[in-house]
């Protein structure tokens, strides 16, 4: 609550500074050319000097103040009553903290109730110190900005420099995100590989993290069945559905369909890609999986399971159709008209032209589209969580239940367990493998698309 007030106060001060500087700059205006910059730029210059230092001070303060509050509470005479064990200590302090923010709530631990009082006092004290700090920064910055409001001061150049810096920072967020992903995944994976050997992880065929433990822990983290399940569902079954359907839709829409039909059908196909995956997952579990099970029983399979690789793969394939079809659509459209005309002029039928000329010419783009689709399919989570099952097995039978990398990541990280166990860390190792594979697929596909486009331009 206090943070909202402080934020609002900072922006209110900035606004006040904006108007002050503008009014002052207007007073300085005595005629054409008397001011270097327009009054608005002086206004922005001062507002930035108020808001930016104050915000930075506030961010720095909110990073350190929880530690200070904790230290202050532990310095309280009451702290002698705390149990020596670190875990209990932390639990009581955490409870006291939430009680302090929510007075009147019943405490689970009576000691926490006592601690809530010094906690509240310390939070209030440090909150006030923080607010004072922010105010000092805002007013110092504002005063500096105000003294700069002079006729010859190049406020516009300074504001534009600030804007350029903001633009640069914004574009760095993307690279920071990539960096953050890589660092956090590699770090946790490194911790995991301290207990489990990477070779066992990448080549072992036995996956049983829930029972893992003891000296032979490495033997329970063999991820090959997960990789197989992921490839089988995402890259084989889903693609068997998506490639023919997507490709044929694209050929139909670009070559045969009436423009009026195309205008309506294309967006309708795109809807398939816009339906949330949780909806597909539910549909797979509710409707498709029982159908697949009955079909398996009809084929004479004893005791078919409700969760099957086929159900998940089928639905995933349908979800992927628009990706394949729109990429194929683009690449077919990029083939120069001259090639098509040439083929038709030689006496080939339209269907021969499509099969012998257009599709081979568009092939690189289509392959890139399929690679992007595979990368999307193997990273897909909700459909497999809801329909594919938890059993890690190496099998080529599509009616068996199978598990994937994404399913296991969800499974490993959604229970209540301590954070640094090999079980949770293995999820990050799986995540790293997934990230590397999709990264390679994406980069190669983007390269191919780029080169392909250049070839025909």
């Amino acid at each position: 609550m206090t943070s909202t007030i402080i934020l609002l106060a900072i922006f209110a001060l900035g606004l006040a500074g904006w108007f002050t500087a503008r009014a002052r700059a207007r007073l300085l205006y005595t005629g054409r050319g008397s001011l270097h910059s327009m009054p608005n730029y002086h206004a922005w210059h001062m507002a930035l000097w108020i808001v930016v230092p104050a915000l930075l001070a506030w961010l720095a303060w909110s990073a350190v103040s929880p530690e200070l509050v904790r230290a202050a509470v532990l310095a309280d005479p009451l702290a002698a009553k705390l149990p020596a064990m670190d875990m209990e200590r932390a639990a009581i302090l955490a409870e006291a903290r939430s009680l302090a923010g929510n007075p009147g709530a019943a405490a689970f631990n009576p000691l926490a109730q006592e601690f809530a009082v010094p906690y509240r006092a310390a939070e209030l004290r440090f909150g006030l110190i923080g607010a004072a700090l922010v105010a000092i920064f805002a007013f110092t910055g504002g005063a500096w900005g105000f003294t700069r409001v002079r006729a010859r001061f190049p406020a516009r150049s300074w504001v534009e420099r600030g804007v350029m810096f903001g633009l640069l920072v914004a574009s760095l967020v993307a690279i920071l995100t990539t960096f953050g992903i890589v660092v956090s995944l590699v770090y946790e994976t490194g911790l995991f590989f301290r207990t489990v050997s990477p070779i066992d992880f990448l080549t072992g065929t036995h996956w049983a993290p829930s029972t893992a433990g003891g000296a032979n822990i490495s033997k329970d983290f063999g991820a090959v069945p997960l990789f197989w399940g992921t490839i089988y569902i995402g890259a084989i079954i889903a693609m068997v559905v998506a490639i023919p359907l997507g490709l044929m839709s694209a050929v139909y829409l670009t070559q045969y369909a009436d423009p009026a039909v195309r205008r309506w059908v294309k967006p309708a196909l795109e809807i398939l890609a816009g339906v949330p995956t949780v909806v597909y997952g539910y549909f797979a579990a509710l409707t498709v999986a029982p159908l697949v099970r009955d079909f398996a029983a009809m084929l004479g399979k004893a005791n078919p399971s409700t969760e099957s690789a086929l159900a998940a793969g089928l639905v995933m394939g349908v979800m992927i159709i628009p990706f394949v079809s729109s990429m194929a659509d683009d690449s077919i459209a990029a083939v120069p008209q001259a090639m098509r005309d040439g083929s038709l002029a030689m006496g080939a039928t339209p269907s021969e032209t499509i099969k012998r000329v257009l599709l081979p010419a568009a092939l690189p783009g289509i392959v890139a589209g399929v690679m992007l689709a595979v990368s999307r399919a193997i990273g897909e989570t909700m459909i497999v969580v809801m329909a594919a099952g938890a059993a890690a097995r190496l099998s080529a039978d599509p009616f068996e239940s199978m598990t994937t990398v994404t399913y296991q990541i969800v499974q490993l990280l959604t229970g209540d367990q301590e954070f640094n166990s090999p079980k949770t860390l293995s999820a990050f190792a799986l995540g790293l493998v997934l990230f590397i594979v999709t990264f390679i697929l994406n980069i190669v596909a983007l390269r191919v698309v780029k080169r392909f486009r250049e070839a025909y331009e």
Partner: protein
Amino acid sequence: MGLGAVVLSLGFLALLLIIMAKNGLGGLGWDFLTRSDSTDPATAGVWGAVKGSLLTMMVTLALSFPMGVLAAVYLEEFAPRNRWVDWVEVSINNLAAVPSIIFGLLGLAVFINVMHLPRSSPLVGGMTLALMTMPVIVISGRNAIKAVPPSIRDAALAIGASPVQTVFHHVVPLALPGILTGTIIGMARALGETAPLLMIGMRAFVATPADGVTAPSSVLPMQIFLWSDEIDKAFVQNTSAAIIVLLAFLLAMNGVAIYLRNKFETRW
């Protein structure tokens, strides 16, 4: 045969919608929309989840829109051609295609384990989704900015506007409809996303709607996922009804995006 493929794909979509409508329409009602989650399917509703989704989307929009637009402006208008900028571009294009669950792992490792922000809160959920949405906004923003003809920039520069003025007074306003369309599409994707939020623990049973961005909360797709796990058959109706609500939101957002595109699209 091509027509057959199209009909088959659209038939699947129609089947999905019909089954959800058949199961769910009976459960939709004022009570369902205004109540929150409960263990009893008859009194459970989606308001808590809808409110959580709205709070999460607010955080996502507040972070990803300014960042995305500014990054797009920088890359398209000011960035020098060098290795560093190439890396930014590769990383944006790649981030747009990274599996969403990876963003969840990032959120878990950074926002929760390092920064100790409150678990299950719309704040963390929104920040995670913002990282996911930003590349989408950057890519569509760049395309919209690229579509503004150079003559506009030349005209502004010729009468003495500075490069920053040219971009912010002329180019960005003209590109805005395209940027907004991309933003809405990115937000619609974020609204339907479940996997990254599972990672950061937004799966708690929350019977009262969250009253702020730091309170534990659920979101609409997560509510669907949680209900779909219930053994009680009566939850099938709730799940389908919640799916209808979610699809209605998405349809409305995409409708606005299409409207914007048609209304403001300029052919230069």
